[in-house]
């Protein structure tokens, strides 16, 4: 049992993929790395597992420097995105394989494997082959193989991304309760932001070859330090408006570069933004901060604009509406029973005190600095 410390980790092939990445996962912590496909998340895990050799940097588990150790001497266990089960072995033998490799006594192996299988609720499948079980069951088998290894560090690579929504949720809940995972350092990689927000004690958003922001679910969702972070978290994703700041009637407002949409800046933001040297700014507006009302309805609030419905998706528990206002397309979340027609004129009431402002060049959150 130990913490995982990564310092200045670098790895590249034709181009740099991981660039001076620093990360510490405490013992017992469930750390989720989230980021879009191809950003280097799996590479990070493979580096920690020893399947790739870093170009620079160190990886430590507790006091041990494992940077130059081969995978089998690292005391890490990894599940693969493709499960990587041995197709010719039964579920039992698949789970038992790390124990056999270690030369554990037969009776002890049986006890351990059955224990883990019960925990994952696959004990009735132990005699089946991977070809004869479903995707969710394969995933549990792969997870079981990782759990029995009793490593210092768990590495989980998109373990539930390829499963259907129902099983994904079921397994997600199971991750919350698995003592084994919760007692050592776990590095969990996913591209699904909901999974990350749900599971992570802390979450790291990957981008630019490293971690753009590390924090709790609430922190990174509400206070994204970078536009990239804001864009990656949330479904539907955040509305991004490239705009220029100007002063009208003594108060600050921004006008979209793509059209005529102009919105006032909320009071608390004005001071910081006024000090912001560049006139150009990228505004992030979360869909849940856009309220949709029928054209004739009474609306209050500082920022109300006229708009026209382009697409409306009724999704049961909620609805997603895309409307066009002054040349800018905005997404909004609507209440479950709302109904809109294509081309219908509507009013959008925007909660401008919840807007996020990013530097147009660096993408950094201007409010956090």
């Amino acid at each position: 049992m130990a913490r995982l410390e990564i310092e200045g980790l670098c790895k590249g092939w034709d181009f740099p993929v991981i660039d001076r990445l620093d990360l510490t996962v405490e013992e017992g912590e469930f750390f989720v790395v989230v980021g879009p496909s191809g950003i280097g998340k799996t590479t990070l895990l493979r580096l920690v597992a020893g399947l790739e050799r870093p170009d620079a940097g160190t990886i430590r588990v507790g006091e041990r420097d494992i940077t130059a150790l081969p995978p089998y001497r690292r005391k890490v266990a990894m599940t693969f995105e493709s499960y990587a089960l041995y197709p010719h072995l039964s579920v039992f033998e698949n789970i038992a394989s790390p124990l056999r490799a270690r030369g554990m006594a037969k009776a002890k192996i049986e006890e351990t494997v059955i224990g883990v299988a019960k925990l994952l609720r696959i004990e009735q499948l132990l005699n089946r082959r991977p070809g004869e079980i479903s995707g969710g069951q394969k995933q549990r088998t792969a997870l079981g193989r990782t759990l029995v290894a009793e490593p210092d560090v768990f590495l989980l690579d998109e373990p539930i991304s390829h499963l259907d929504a129902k099983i994904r949720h079921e397994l997600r809940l199971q991750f919350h309760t698995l003592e084994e995972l919760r007692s050592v350092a776990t590095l969990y990689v996913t591209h699904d932001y909901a999974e990350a927000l749900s599971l992570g004690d802390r979450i790291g958003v990957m981008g630019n070859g490293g971690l753009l922001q590390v924090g709790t679910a609430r922190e990174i969702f509400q206070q994204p330090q970078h536009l990239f972070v804001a864009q990656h978290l949330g479904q539907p994703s955040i509305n991004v408006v490239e705009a220029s700041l100007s002063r009208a009637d003594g108060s600050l407002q921004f006008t979209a570069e793509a059209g005529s949409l102009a919105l006032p800046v909320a009071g608390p933001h004005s001071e910081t933004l006024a000090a912001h040297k560049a006139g150009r700014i990228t505004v992030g507006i979360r869909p849940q901060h856009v309220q949709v009302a029928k054209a004739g309805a009474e609306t209050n609030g500082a920022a109300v604009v006229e708009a026209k419905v382009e697409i409306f998706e009724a999704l049961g528990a909620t609805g997603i509406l895309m409307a066009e206002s002054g040349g800018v397309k905005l997404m909004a979340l609507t209440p479950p029973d709302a109904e809109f027609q294509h081309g219908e004129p509507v009013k959008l009431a925007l909660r401008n005190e919840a807007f996020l402002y990013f530097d147009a060049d660096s993408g950094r959150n201007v409010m956090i600095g």
Partner: protein
Amino acid sequence: MVDGSAADEPSGGNSALGRRLDRGDPATFPEWFNTRKPRANLIVARWVPLALVGLPVLVLFCIVVYPTVWMFYHALHDTNMMRLFQSNWSWVGFENFATVLSSPRFGDSVVHLGIYLTFGACLQVLLGAALALILYELVKNNFLRVVFLIAMVLPMMLPPSIVGVLWKFLLTPSNGAINQALLNLGLIDQHIEWFNAGMSLWTIIIADVWNWTALPLLIVYSGRVSLPPAVYEAARVDGAGTWTTLRRITLPMLKEVIAIAFIVRFMDAFKFVDLVFIMTSGGPAQSSELPAYIAFQRGLREFAIGEAAAYAIIIFLVSAVLITLFLKYLKKVLKAQGFA
């Protein structure tokens, strides 16, 4: 809250926040990337791949490269056993090749080889492929399949000397089992002279087909097993019958596998000596000689080493051209399917 999140960071920060990395723009690449050195991977030590490749290369050099060079050298000299021991051979240019190419014996053997390729090697592949597909389609029970496969593969496992003697024995004209059986069945009314001049090459082909049909069978069978079942289910949904499925799906998908079976059998055909030697010794009157057999006969029994080497080189060149054409075709097929 805003400032707290940064200050209270326990460890491992947001180091990437203050920089830009665009994979398409080398100007944004960090310093370490441009100065890094290649590193061995962690799973195997650096010497392991070297040793694993190096040792076989060394062995191959001794048993393939050296003898081949030696052969090319002596093909251009008047070497025979006597001169070899006296280290007294002399340069004759392409005389050995001229001797070989102008001899009627060589011409006849090429005709024999053509017959053998068509009715031996090709027939084996076609027969093997057909048997493989029939076995796969008709026998659905796994145990039975294995039993059939083993039964059909058994001939291939016998050493060629045994196969030769066995068939010589079975085909003995006067009291061999096959003639006797054909007589008893009333199919013939006198013994077939299996080993006379007109027949002996065909007799060898019969034995060879029996011996080697299992190889293309195995190759095609394993190819058929690995075809995705979903394609066949789709074909059934589309309403394709057995014949259409075979012609439009199975055969096209097995093209390259069958091509590999052809390559293997053709390569063997060019160096086919064993059964010829045991069953007929090329006779009677050289009527069943193949080029490789003559090379063997001239070189190792009559010790005309220079001439034998010339034979070997001619065979080598012709087979090299043929195999290259095959491989070209195979590459084209694989490329079309996006494998290579």
